[in-house]
């Protein structure tokens, strides 16, 4: 017989409240015989778990059989709302029906002819033909092109004039340099060359 405040089997089977469990734990810490009993109960439980659950050989599938399902109207309703494809098809069908009903119920003659927008031209403006418009546009384009080409030609001529002026200056400088160099060379030749003289210092 156990001296524990509560049944140790209830303790091992986890049937005690938290408070009761704590009391038993406190008792077991100081009672060797109860501690041994709790240990044996735990060993027994652990040994029982050596037997594991088996997998079920085949899944239970009887609910897929229509005969076990609820009333036909309930099945139909569940199938209808349970199927996205069917719901989509039903929505499309309802939309089509609504369009047909609308087209049939629409008042006749409302849209017999094509819709035309009426715009009154200003009275002060004289009618201008398409060819004249094109002619004016072409003239404006020609003028713009001519102006542009004239501007380009002017810039080109100015550039050419500038380049020619620069070239002339450069040529003049080059000629001047060349002239200077020739004169230097001549001076050098003259200074290095002496005519043969006679004994009394006269040129031979």
């Amino acid at each position, binding site marked *: 017989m156990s001296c524990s405040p509560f049944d140790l*089997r209830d303790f091992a089977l986890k049937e005690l409240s938290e408070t009761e469990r704590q009391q038993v734990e406190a008792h077991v810490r100081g009672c060797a015989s109860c501690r041994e009993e709790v240990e044996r109960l735990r060993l027994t439980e652990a*040994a029982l778990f050596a037997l594991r*659950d088996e997998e079920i050989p*085949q899944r239970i599938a009887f609910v*897929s059989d229509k005969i076990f*399902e609820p*009333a036909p109207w309930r099945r139909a309703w569940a199938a209808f709302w349970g199927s996205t494809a069917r719901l989509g098809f039903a929505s499309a069908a309802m939309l089509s029906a609504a369009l047909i009903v609308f087209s049939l119920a629409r008042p006749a003659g409302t849209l017999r002819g094509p819709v035309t927008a009426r715009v009154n031209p200003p009275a002060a403006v004289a009618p201008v033909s398409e060819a004249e418009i094109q002619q004016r546009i072409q003239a404006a384009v020609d003028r713009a092109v001519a102006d542009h080409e004239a501007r380009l030609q002017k810039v080109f001529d100015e550039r050419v004039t500038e380049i020619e002026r620069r070239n002339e200056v450069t040529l003049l400088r080059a000629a001047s340099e060349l002239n200077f160099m020739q004169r230097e060379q001549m001076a050098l030749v003259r200074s290095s060359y002496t005519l043969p003289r006679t004994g009394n210092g006269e040129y031979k």
Partner: protein
Amino acid sequence: MIFRAVEETDLIRQAARGAVEAYNLLVSRWEKRVYNYLLRITGNREDALDLTQDVFLKAYQNLRKLDDPARFAPWLYRIAHNEAYSLFRKRRPESDVEELELEATETSVLVGGSSVFPIELGLAVASALERLSPEQREAVVLKIYQGFKFEEMAEILSCPVSTVKSRLYTALELLKAELAPIKARGLS
């Protein structure tokens, strides 16, 4: 929808309104546990599977009678218990069911299934369980393997909590003597 956690009580309510998919999900959650409960009290895989089918069929047909969806588990096991004992009565109508020893309880069935424990321990446990009375064994199965509380077991077995405790305590004493014998004092 598939990956969303669905509360069991919601599934039960939907199934009670005729949602087959909800009931299928309920079955998938419970079929293994119910099958193993029936396997351990019948000791026969074919019987356990047939009974599991019957249990879920009967549960589906009577789901609207379940007042409190939170009591689904003991309610389902009550059906399983009744189905099993109906089978026993059919097989041996002249016997008193209370005294009926479950037939065809094979050690191989009890030991079956993958286990991380040594096979010797599995055999010892199966042997110890076989020596229990059917009521004691069922009490052990419901408590140890299925994790029910005393009140739930009383509901399933349709008996007082005191009876449940009596069966379970007696079974535990027998199992303890078999599986966790007292150490010989003074011996190392």
